């Protein structure tokens, strides 16, 4: 395994609420997310996918066990773009860079990633002046521009219509192929899992969460399509597992 894979070692976690008498979400949970690949976590809503991401990015702390390799340095692509409404597109990207590089380099980096997502002409617009898809593209640019080893994605395309979803999936692939950062993509959409995942981890519906299957997709990202025989086979398998 490459050295900066993310190892989740026997973690336990439950939300500490008196009303929550259910079993803990995670109990002695182990997982290894390989470096420089896209790992997809596929599972039904409420199974603990988002919680796992928040444990990896440090928003939540596990009750037991440890997570090695994320080093608290992660980019996150949220379900919503989460841009600052009072800052321009350009500033929204520069803000996360300022701490890591000089202002001139921040500007150049922001410009570079805006170019990649095709929004350089909208750099001085405010988020409210963009469409939903454009805003999520800014968020993608921001996630890649931020100098993190790991990119976490929490159903980032869920709220978009099918055309935009495909568009943004392709955009992500294009950026990722150039710059293969360790990526974790959480979704409940089988097609997204097939198009993006190198490894697909299927989570169970019960508590505590179990990994019920791990599927490796050998097909190179650039050649993937939902119609290929490989994709169809994975799809069939996933349907069986999830139903």
């Amino acid at each position, binding site marked *: 395994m490459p050295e900066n894979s993310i190892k989740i070692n026997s973690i336990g976690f439950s939300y500490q609420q008196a009303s929550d008498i259910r079993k803990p979400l995670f109990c002695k949970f182990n997982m290894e997310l390989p470096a420089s690949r896209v790992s997809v976590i596929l599972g039904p809503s409420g199974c603990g996918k988002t919680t796992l991401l928040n444990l990896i990015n440090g928003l939540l702390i596990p009750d037991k066990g440890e997570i090695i390799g994320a080093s608290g340095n992660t980019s996150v692509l*949220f379900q919503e773009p989460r841009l600052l409404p009072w800052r321009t597109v350009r500033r929204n990207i520069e803000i996360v860079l300022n701490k890591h590089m000089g202002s001139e380099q921040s500007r150049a980096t922001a410009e570079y990633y805006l170019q990649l997502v095709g929004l350089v002409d909208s750099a001085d617009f405010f988020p409210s002046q963009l469409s939903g898809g454009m805003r999520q593209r800014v968020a993608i640019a921001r996630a890649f521009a931020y100098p993190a080893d790991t990119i976490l994605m929490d159903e980032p395309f869920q709220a978009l219509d099918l055309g935009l979803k495909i568009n943004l999936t392709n955009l992500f692939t294009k950026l990722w192929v150039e710059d293969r950062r360790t990526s974790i993509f959480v979704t409940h959409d089988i097609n997204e899992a097939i198009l993006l995942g190198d490894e697909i981890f299927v989570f169970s519906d019960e508590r505590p969460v179990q990994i019920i299957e791990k599927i490796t997709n050998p097909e190179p990202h650039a050649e993937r399509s939902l119609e290929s025989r490989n994709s169809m086979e994975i799809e069939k398998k996933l349907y069986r597992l999830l139903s």
Partner: protein
Amino acid sequence: MKGFTSKFEKHLIGVASTAVLILIWKLVSLRIGTDIILPAPETVLLRLEALVTGLDFWMAVGATVLRTVYGLALSFVLGFSAGIASGVSRRVDAMLSPLVSVTRTVPVMSLILLAMIWFKTDLVPVFVCVLMIFPILTANVKQGVAGVDRKLIEFSVVYKLSRREALREIIIPSVVPFVLGGLRSSIGVGWKVVIAAEVLAQPVRAIGTGLQFSQMNLETAEVLGWTVMAVVLSWLSEGILDVIIKRIRPEASVNA
């Protein structure tokens, strides 16, 4: 087109209702027949005209404007900082809340009388204005901090923005509309409080002093003349603030 018509209509109705009010004033003053009790509108206007030609009048108006501006500016700074501090930290909130609730309930007149014991007459109106307005702004800002989008805070944590950056990039921009709204709704109170304090404290130059002096001489037309001036000032300041608020609208502040 429809918007224009209704706006025009609104203005027309406003002008008409003002005219009706002035007409009623005129009729009542005719019925009473004594200028000491209620002078006719045109008498007030003539008196005001005589007032505005004097330098003393403008010095008084200028002094009152300065006091109000000082009072509001100081309240703004204090209210903004106290509001943010108590919105961010429960401890500060617990510390400030007795002060805020006391100043909110103390009668204005007690404040004025106490301030007259403690301060020079020129400062009394400023002090009272600050004590009246700053708790309102503090409450507004605190509410603004509470309303900051949690998702943006989460974003700032994940992307490791420093506390200062989070304050500058997320909390302050979210709160600015609240503090301006609070200022907008308290600016009228500010004028009233300043002038009330002036009436009692009697600084050398002040609209309040002018009011008091005219009242003692039973110059009712002059009392009303000063009053008209105070109302005009209040309207003007509200108008100016409206323009500023429009300018500061988040989407308009590119590199603020």
